[in-house]
């Protein structure tokens, strides 16, 4: 079942205006973003569809989509948008939301980011071989790993990658940066979810009051005669 959530849509719209200075309402569906997107052929929804979904209140569907996961952040859409909407910025921000909400997202991008960042947090500088090894282990997809073993031959013969990672001098600080920001992001997301719930409750209350009022109105109209109710309709 499709659930259109206007409160959630309004909440994220305002958030995006604040955080990336982009208003999803500016989109008039010209499709330039999707035409230029190099990765859209693998997306479940094209960029212009994502924009429409954000407008009408299908934010949850967007947050669970492969589109925001597989976006390369090449910025072609942003560069070509005739309404100057930072579409890539919107995708980037929503991706961070999906991470903070710990959503089960499609594709292996989450595994890749996690392998990369935990390696950096531990060693300060990216140990490339270690990162690749942990990523392919994380994918639980031995076929994918085996398909890339061949790459190691030219890399090794040209001595382009040491196998054993070394810790850089600033690694401790980098580790702390990672830990602190991740904790902060989770706390912020929690607070935001609370705000959204509050907004929803308020909207529901106002809605009930409004429908109550409308009900009274209808009754009043009904009691006062058929002509008026037609006008009311």
């Amino acid at each position, binding site marked *: 079942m499709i659930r259109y959530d206007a409160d959630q849509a309004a909440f994220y719209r305002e958030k995006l205006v604040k*955080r990336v200075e982009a208003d999803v309402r500016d989109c008039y569906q010209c499709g330039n973003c999707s035409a230029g997107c*190099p*990765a859209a*052929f*693998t997306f479940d929804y094209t960029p212009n569809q994502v924009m429409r979904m954000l407008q009408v209140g299908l934010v949850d569907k967007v947050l669970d989509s492969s589109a925001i996961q*597989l976006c*390369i*952040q*090449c*910025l*072609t859409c*942003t*560069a070509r948008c005739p309404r100057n909407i930072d579409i890539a910025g919107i995708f*980037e*921000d929503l*991706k*961070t939301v999906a*991470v*903070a909400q710990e959503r089960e997202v499609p*594709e*292996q*991008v989450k*595994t*890749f*980011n996690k392998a*990369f*960042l935990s390696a*950096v947090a531990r060693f*300060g*500088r*990216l140990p*490339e071989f270690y990162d*690749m090894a942990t*990523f392919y282990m994380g*994918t639980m997809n031995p076929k*994918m790993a085996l*398909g*890339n073993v*061949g*790459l190691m031959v*030219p*890399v090794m013969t*040209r001595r*382009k*990658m*040491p196998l054993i990672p070394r810790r*850089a*001098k*600033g*690694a401790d*600080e*980098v580790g*702390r*940066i*990672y830990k*602190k*920001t*991740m904790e*902060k*992001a989770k706390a912020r997301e929690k607070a935001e979810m609370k705000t959204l719930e509050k907004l929803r409750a308020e909207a529901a209350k106002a809605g009930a009051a409004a429908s109550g009022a409308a009900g009274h109105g209808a009754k009043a109209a009904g009691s006062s005669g058929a002509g008026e109710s037609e006008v009311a309709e």
Partner: protein
Amino acid sequence: MTLAYYPGCSLRHSSEELDHSSRKVLEALGVDFKEIPDWTCCGSTPAHMVDHLLAQSLAARNLRQATEIGDELVAPCPSCYQREKNAAVEIKESDEFRAEVNEILDKPYTGNVTCYSLPEYLINFVGEEKVASLVKVDLSQLKVVPYYGCLLGRPNDMVGEESPEQPMMMDLLLQAAGVDVKWWNYKTECCGASVGMPKEEIQRKLSGKVLEQALAAGADAVVVCCPLCHVNLDLKQGQINKALGTDYKVPILHLPQVLGLAFGMSEDDVMLQKNIVDPRPLIKRVIAEAAAIKAEEERKAAEKAAKEAAKAAKAASDAAAGESAPAKAAAGATPSTDEEVTP
């Protein structure tokens, strides 16, 4: 003032040749630079895909380290450059955000560092004339396409290009170095970037298209700045061929490698042996071709000069003969005609 040099993780190992050739070229051009002490990862793509504050704080730590050297930073890797610049600009614009970042860092970042990519720095502070003045090797037969990828063209106001669709800095530098730069439409198309790891089909299709278009433009090699573009086009070229059923064998060169070669550096100086698709036969061939063309031109010029000399000599002898000939004719003819009659 000394320039702070940020190598980044890729340049330490998998793209060592980019680091090495960048340093060599900067030295040759007389740029005073020093590596940032205890730099760490810029956060790259994963950091800004996971959390904004994480990305900006990781980059800000390096900006803080850079202030130990100066307030200008150059990062040959376009990804590092974008991350560092992005953080530097946001922090400079907002004191509130600076405070937020400094809360995360061990020691606060209080400076204002300006970040440059390698082509941006060379165009703005070294200049094409200086580059051209150092050229010692004729690379006019090296046909290349400059590949900017995503990070040196967009957002164009940030990277200092006039147009996001038509960046020019690499073109200008390569032309100054005397290379035959071909015009093509794939300057700023994406190679697949880091999504090439978790979603291989994207990278294979996009990188394959870049190689196809480079050849269609009449290029023998692609020149890149980005180490990740290099990995995707060079190291993974075999995978692309396998996936697409193609047979590409296109050398992928780093911009400073080409500049270094033009400045007369050896293949080892710019580490051509580290590239996967071996560019050395191509470089040898184009230098030999240029020499042959030069020799041919010299031969033609000499021939022309000889011909002209012969012609001049003939004309001189004709003139000399001509001077006596009319005299002879005059003497031979000697009809009883008036002086005014001319044949």
